[in-house]
């Protein structure tokens, strides 16, 4: 399952969960041992500083897609006079990501441990864990784990699970906080970024579930030991979700910096890799030359990619990249929160352009219209949803440029008549926003 060499088997998020086994509290403690926490409030400040130091040494970055250094995010919120509420985001609206769901279902106590650490560091008295309503396996596992440990954490914080509707955009930070603050699970407009998100009178500290669980490993083993598991400067281990043209899709725990091709080999590609969509439906396509690149922020940056939330979607020469791209764009267009004009009208227009290119029906300079739509949509939504689609399409047009050129000349690529391989779920349009 994992690849690297000199490794500590306890420094694994998925340790003991092999074969889909859920770890109860006793089993969790048998593998990971007791979580070190400050025992009294008077020690808390010193402890928090040391904790942030360990996180900094670990090199941990946000595993929800942002990739922002976790220690910097933490130190920006610690020690102020604001009251915080800790929000753990396990929404995972991205259909090609499964890792937060896997963690919640099989290693829920690591997530709760990490939440305890965040609550201690921020002196927060409440922790809310958000799991999509249509993901009962994950939410019931977290609920059961909270019950096993007692509704209140070891330092008195109150834990509870919230289940917003499982829409694509519902896990976006501002949408999630809006829902927890009794609003709709739609993104809100924030004129200045980073924006302060509040629930009632408290500031929401939102952390992705995997990032949170990883904090539980770092607190136990130290930042240096965690970083040493990695294979390049970024360091550490991370979860990836492999899908697309692979015969064994699924979640793997890998050393950051492992060559992308080595990771993809874990899923057994079904054909010759023609392109890889990194980060999710709103991510970045990279070409086969990326197979030798280290899967890390540093390794993927020259190719325009990033690890993001660990999504790796493989495309092979068995299907047409443009057709796959058109389907993703169409799916994403239907996942708009329906709030911003450039997203509501722009994304369907873009998806339509792409479907015409995929069908090699270049009527009225479709390429010009496509570029114009990309330019006009970018940067004009309240959230990053439309920008993600623009990024995916721009990078895809570049990776599949030869096929695009052929399609524009009315000659479809060799695989254009083959069936598409990506399995897109049903759109979530029927779900409520509350």
């Amino acid at each position, binding site marked *: 399952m994992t690849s690297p060499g000199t490794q500590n088997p306890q420094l694994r998020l998925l340790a003991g969960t092999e074969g889909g086994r859920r770890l109860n509290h006793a089993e969790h403690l048998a593998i990971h041992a007791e979580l070190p926490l400050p025992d009294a409030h008077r020690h808390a400040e010193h402890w928090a500083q040391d904790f942030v130091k360990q996180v900094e040494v670990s090199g941990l970055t946000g595993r929800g897609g942002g990739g922002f250094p976790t220690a910097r995010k933490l130190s920006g919120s610690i020690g102020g006079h604001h009251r915080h509420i800790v929000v753990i985001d396990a929404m995972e609206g991205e259909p090609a990501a499964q890792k937060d769901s896997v963690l919640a279902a099989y290693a829920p106590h690591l997530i709760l441990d990490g939440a305890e650490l965040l609550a201690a560091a921020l002196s927060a008295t409440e922790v809310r864990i958000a799991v999509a309503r249509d993901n009962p396996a994950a939410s019931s596992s977290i609920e059961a784990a909270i019950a096993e440990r007692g509704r209140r954490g070891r330092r008195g914080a109150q834990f509870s699970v919230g289940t917003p509707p499982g829409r694509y955009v519902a896990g976006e930070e501002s949408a999630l906080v809006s829902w927890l603050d009794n609003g709709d699970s739609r993104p*809100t*407009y924030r004129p200045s970024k980073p924006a302060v998100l509040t629930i009632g009178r408290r500031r929401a500290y939102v952390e992705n579930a995997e990032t949170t669980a990883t904090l539980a490993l770092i607190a136990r083993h130290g930042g240096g030991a965690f970083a040493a598991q990695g294979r390049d400067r970024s360091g550490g281990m991370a979860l990836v979700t492999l899908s697309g043209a692979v015969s064994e899709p699924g979640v793997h725990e890998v050393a950051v910096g492992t060559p992308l091709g080595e990771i993809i080999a874990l899923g057994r590609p079904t054909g010759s890799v023609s392109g890889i969509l990194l980060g999710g439906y709103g991510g970045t396509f990279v070409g086969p030359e990326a197979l030798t690149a280290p899967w890390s922020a540093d390794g993927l940056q020259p190719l325009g990619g990033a690890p993001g939330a660990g999504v790796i979607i493989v495309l092979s020469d068995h299907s047409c990249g443009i057709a796959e791209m058109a389907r993703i764009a169409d799916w994403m267009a239907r996942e708009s929160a329906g709030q911003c*004009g*450039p997203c509501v*009208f*722009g994304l369907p227009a873009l998806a339509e352009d792409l479907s015409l290119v995929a069908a090699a029906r270049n009527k009225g300079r479709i390429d010009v219209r496509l570029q114009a739509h990309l330019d006009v949509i970018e940067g*004009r939504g*309240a959230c990053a949803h439309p920008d993600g689609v623009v990024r995916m399409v721009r990078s895809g047009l570049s990776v599949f440029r030869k096929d695009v050129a052929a399609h524009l000349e009315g000659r479809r690529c060799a695989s254009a008549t083959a069936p598409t391989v990506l399995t897109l779920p049903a759109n979530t349009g029927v779900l409520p926003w509350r």
Partner: protein
Amino acid sequence: MKLEIKVDPVACDGYGHCAEVAPEIFSLDEWGYPIIRTPMVPPALLAIANLAVKQCPRKALHLAQVVEAPSRRR
């Protein structure tokens, strides 16, 4: 003090009033939503920028002071 004109895309319903009041600042995309041509409002255009802000039927426009600090991405 520099002023930047911003549109709240959630509030905006594409009335297009801004582009009529202040065509130097706003154009409209093919769906009728404003594209800001000059985000940093030059002093000469401040009066009509204010007018556009005041007259927006959805109150979707606002002028923000620009803080001269490096902004964090994402």
